[in-house]
């Protein structure tokens, strides 16, 4: 999975730990449910028809055996799973018969997130996921450890990744005797012990509310320890619910599927009367819709993001909670989304692409702002991304999101037949980024910073030749942005500009002048936006940006691919 690192075993002074002893229950449970689901989903009609007490007892007996076997197997796999954090990275050893050793080298650790699925959360456990640069399933899971331990691990791993592990022994405290600090405090706070008050207060002195010990502790529990650093965004439940109600795509999807289910049931009843087979056939939809709805709620519930020198920390979730960490300067692309009815309150959803983090699940780490106000948008983008290079980035984005696509100056297809694309798709080259606006009802902006372009591809075909257009694929680390059917000379001109960006920006040797996020990490005032004239977008952004005012991403923690 990861790059073959040095064999972590002979490293002295890196004690290997086991995960929490209740882990087999949590993981074994899944196996049992899986088996039951597979067995019953296929035969439920038959089972219901041939129900007798005896068969039920036999079934229960078999189930019990399965549960026991699953737990024993899980316990064995738990016994053979160990993890360790040392100066070189994180390693996880697992497997009883075929042993596997996974290793995340220090320099390639992209982020650390803590996930708490519902059952694990009830038991006070958490899963630590270490994201490593690389495509596909490039992560290392430590599941499950106690919540407080997870917090310690997160801090320890981030410290290792930052390369500040001079005092690695204190950075990664041994489980039995946690060093005093956030870990111990978090543990005490989670346990609700009265001793937590003083340390929580000490932690909160910098934010100036030492008097509100109690409130601080409550916050600590509510937000899973995401209480330090500067507040970037906090989404009240009311706004989340209103945002879902106002999301037309979401609503129509639900209404359509509910109507579909009802119509299907009625049709079936009318055709051949009631039978269990109908219910079985509809079960996937009947489960998927509530799951999707709940997933949407879950992914924004209690969302809070804070910025510290480690990057943006986010917490979210109602049943399954997770905290993620995204370092500034690692974002490859942003996607802004504004559904039709969010235009009134000016809300925006932001998701970010980071190399190595998959966005396959609904509530993944890629959503950095589920529904944010303008100010939250400004803060989030300002912290995470290099400026777009306009006089007022927020106003520019707002304009790009609110104006009709036809009114925006930019590149669009010249072909009259593509009349939907002509009215909805437009690409704008700003000094700092390439922005692609799409969507008719729900408007979308895809922002690719110009220094993040990996390669470019022009595509030509007979139809395009006849119409006088070209497709330009702008490929970043991750997925690509397609500028479709541009005029040929436009496409070539943009290609030339972007090719120059791709080869000159973000070189290691000009590391000092890399574009940096506009808003300073903590405390310091934001530097004034670049005073470059808007008419010179061909300039390399590094000449325009104040680079000195911001302590940038740590140089030795950078990925070296």
């Amino acid at each position, binding site marked *: 999975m990861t790059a073959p690192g040095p064999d972590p075993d002979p490293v002295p002074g890196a004690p290997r730990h086991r995960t929490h002893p209740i882990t087999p229950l949590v993981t074994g449970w899944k196996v049992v449910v899986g088996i039951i689901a597979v067995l019953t989903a296929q035969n439920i009609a038959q089972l219901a028809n041939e129900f007798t007490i005896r068969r039920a007892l036999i079934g229960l007996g078999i189930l019990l055996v399965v549960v026991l076997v699953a737990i024993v197997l899980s316990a064995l796999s738990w016994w053979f799973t160990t993890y360790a954090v040392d100066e070189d990275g994180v390693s996880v050893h697992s497997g009883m018969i075929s042993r596997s050793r996974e290793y995340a080298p220090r320099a390639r650790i992209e982020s650390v997130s803590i996930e708490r699925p519902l059952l694990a959360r009830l038991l006070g456990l958490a899963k630590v996921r270490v994201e490593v640069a690389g495509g596909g399933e490039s992560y290392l899971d430590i599941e499950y450890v106690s919540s407080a331990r997870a917090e310690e691990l997160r801090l320890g791993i981030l410290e290792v990744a930052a390369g500040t592990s001079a005092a690695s022994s204190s950075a990664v405290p041994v489980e039995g005797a946690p060093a005093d600090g956030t870990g111990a405090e978090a543990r005490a706070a989670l346990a609700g012990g009265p001793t937590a008050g003083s340390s929580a207060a000490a932690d909160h002195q910098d934010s100036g509310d030492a008097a509100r010990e109690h409130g601080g502790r409550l916050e600590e529990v509510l937000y899973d320890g995401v209480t330090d650093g500067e507040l970037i965004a906090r989404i009240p439940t009311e706004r989340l619910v209103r945002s879902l109600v106002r999301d037309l795509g979401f609503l129509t999807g639900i209404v359509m599927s509910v109507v579909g289910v009802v119509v299907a049931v009625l049709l079936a009843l009318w055709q051949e009367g009631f039978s269990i087979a109908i219910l079985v056939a509809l079960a996937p939809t009947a489960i998927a819709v509530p799951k999707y709805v709940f997933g949407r709620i879950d992914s924004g519930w209690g969302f809070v993001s804070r910025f510290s020198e480690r990057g943006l920390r986010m917490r979210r979730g109602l049943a399954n909670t997770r905290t993620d960490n995204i370092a500034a300067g690692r974002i490859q692309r942003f996607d802004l989304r504004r559904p039709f009815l969010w235009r009134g309150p000016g809300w925006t959803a932001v998701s970010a692409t980071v190399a190595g983090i998959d966005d396959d699940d609904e509530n993944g780490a890629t959503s950095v702002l589920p529904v944010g106000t303008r100010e939250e948008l400004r803060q989030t983008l300002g912290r995470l991304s290099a400026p777009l290079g306009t006089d007022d980035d927020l106003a520019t984005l707002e304009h790009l999101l609110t104006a009709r696509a036809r009114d925006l100056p930019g590149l669009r297809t010249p072909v009259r037949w593509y009349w939907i694309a002509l009215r909805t798709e437009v690409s704008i080259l700003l000094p700092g980024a390439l922005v692609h606006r799409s969507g008719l009802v729900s408007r979308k902006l895809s922002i690719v910073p110009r220094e993040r372009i990996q390669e470019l591809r022009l595509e030509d075909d007979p139809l395009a030749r006849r119409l006088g257009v070209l497709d330009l694929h702008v490929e970043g*680390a991750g997925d690509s942005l397609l500028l479709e059917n541009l005029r040929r000379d436009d496409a070539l001109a943009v290609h030339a500009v972007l090719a120059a960006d791709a080869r000159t920006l973000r070189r290691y040797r000009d590391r000092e002048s890399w574009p940096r996020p506009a808003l300073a990490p903590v405390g310091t005032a934001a530097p004034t936006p670049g005073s470059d004239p808007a008419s010179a977008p061909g300039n390399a952004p590094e000449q325009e940006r104040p680079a000195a005012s911001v302590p940038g991403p740590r140089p030795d923690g950078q990925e070296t*691919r």
Partner: protein
Amino acid sequence: MTSSAPDARPPLPTATPHDAPPTEVSDAPGARLGEQGLQPVSPKLVPARYLAGIPGYVIGVLLTIGAIVAAVLTGWWWLGLTAIVPLALVVQGLALTPRRVRAIGYREGEEDLTVALGIMFRSVHTIPYGRVQSVKIDEGPVDRRYGLAKLTLSTAHDGAGVTLPGLPKDEAERLRALLTARGVELMAAL
């Protein structure tokens, strides 16, 4: 701030930027996209592709013959029509391979590599040296017979990478060395 504020206007895009670098990909009418200045790959790739294609041609011809024989034996003339598809595949393979090979080209720029492939569906890749993550050289049995090699480049982008077939073996080695050396010199972060 309101969206109608005059300062909210984004700058004009660089459709015709006055200080943009000159267009590097040529698009002359009548010529292929990006054809100018490209270095062709070895002409030996034509026989190599024919040789590699022999199994396909044989199967195509057999299918054609089979369809015709079936049509004659059964007397259903329309069975003969099914011969068209394999026949067309074989014929276009034989006829277009030389043009396809001539359409492949590459150019070593100062700081990036351009690779162009295809006649009708043509794609032109531009890969900066500093963004290359890995370089791979493949030699199949047929390629080896003709002293050819296939170079595959990949960047951090999700995808198969760019493949440049039909390089003479030492040219492929030279390119690999160049890409590695320039890649280290011009290394760009993600």
